[in-house]
């Protein structure tokens, strides 16, 4: 008998991301907020695509990671892990299949925001009769999309490590405040924030002008907030006894 192919696990886990009532509501809220935020910002701020897409990014930075956290913690909370891991005991495959859909959703959401931003920018430019503000080239678009993906990855990593939805969401959402707090703890605090606060180190990436030093700092904070917790979380999810 052949084992379950990975694409099948991926299809199942993608479906699970959107087939519950709460997930459907979250997606609708997110889509509505994205359109509303971009239009409103366009009317107020004028045809500045980077700023408009960035507005949508604020919602993405909170709701999409929360969606990812729910995806990786939900089975433990509702104890459906019993069923899922009984159907596929090679748990690392299930866990990998759980992480990919939220990351792809971040890419799709970024594309959606761009698709809304472009016409809104054009219309605002036409109506207000002002030129479109440049500075949102392909590199900036790419960096901004990568930022959205990284923030979701951070949510996933925290969720995988803690295996508890409310705790993970609270921790994820309090990281900016945590960064601010640590940043005020003198020289050491500032140094820590400069190197390990992902919300700070993604800044240059999101703007699309990442220098070598920026990249090193980004890599350090990715290791701290994504690679390390994700690795520990994988080990925990694979070893943990399901009760």
């Amino acid at each position: 008998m052949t084992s379950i192919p990975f694409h099948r696990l991926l299809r199942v886990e993608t479906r699970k991301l959107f087939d519950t009532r709460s997930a459907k509501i979250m997606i609708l809220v997110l889509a509505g907020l994205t359109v509303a935020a971009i239009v409103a910002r366009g009317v107020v701020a004028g045809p500045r695509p980077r700023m408009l897409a960035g507005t949508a990014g604020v919602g993405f930075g909170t709701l999409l990671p929360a969606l990812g956290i729910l995806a990786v913690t939900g089975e433990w909370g509702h104890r459906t892990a019993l069923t899922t891991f009984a159907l596929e005991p090679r748990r690392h495959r299930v866990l990998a299949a759980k992480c990919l859909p939220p990351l792809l959703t971040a890419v799709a959401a970024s594309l959606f925001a761009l698709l809304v931003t472009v016409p809104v920018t054009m219309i605002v430019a036409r109506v207000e009769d002002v030129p479109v503000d440049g500075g949102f080239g392909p590199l900036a678009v790419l960096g901004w999309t990568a930022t959205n993906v990284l923030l979701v990855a951070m949510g996933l990593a925290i969720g995988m490590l803690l295996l508890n939805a409310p705790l993970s969401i609270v921790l994820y959402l309090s990281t900016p405040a945590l960064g601010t707090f640590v940043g005020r703890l003198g020289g050491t605090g500032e140094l820590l924030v400069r190197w390990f606060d992902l919300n700070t180190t993604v800044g240059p990436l999101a703007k699309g002008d990442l220098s070598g030093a920026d990249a090193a700092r980004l890599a350090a904070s990715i290791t701290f907030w994504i690679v390390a917790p994700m690795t520990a979380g994988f080990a925990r999810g694979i070893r943990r006894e399901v009760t």
Partner: protein
Amino acid sequence: MIEFSHVSKTYRGVRALDDVSFAVGPGCVTGFLGPNGAGKSTALRILTGLARATSGSATVFGRAYAELANPGARVGTLLDAGALHPGRTGRETLTLGAMMIGLPRTRVGEVLDLVGLTGREADRVVGGYSLGMRQRLCVGHALLGRPEVLVLDEPVNGLDPQGIHWMRVLLRGLADSGCSVLLSSHLLHEIEQVADRLVMIGRGRILAQGTVAELSRGRSLEETFLDLTANADRSVS
């Protein structure tokens, strides 16, 4: 088909299972009977690879469950009727299982008919289900892959008399077609009605096993059971 061989399990210094050995053959319904906390669920979770034995081994088809390539296609499991996502419909719950095992979607409708859930019930979210409906849905989930082996943890818990009758007819039919069924319960009267053989467990140890007639030995099965579990408690305390 199922074999427990000297399985012991220690949880934080407490011996949850102590040298558990028994086998379940094909074409028979085996009742795994014991009071709450006797170690039934722990044993079934070790069997299905969800928990690890401290020593000993549990196998299905002579292999560790976790080594089966697509276990859902050969072994049906109901490990906890409460382990359902409340925001999913019954149909969606079964669809996910069918997708994972690699079954055609038509199997979902067949299983719904088999466990007696109507189309309207199947399209409601599980959060609004009664305990009986959850049990039926979970039994249906276990039956998706037309398994040769069924492992059911407390499947009659919460069923009304009609539900228990339905379960008896269903399991009898499955066993007669060659399926081996292992079901646990703490309710003697309910399990007595569905099982051919019984394995009695108390405080993590096998107290007795055999057919219902062998175990009662002229007395009521209830007396035997109470005697055995009382002795198990005494020997520990």
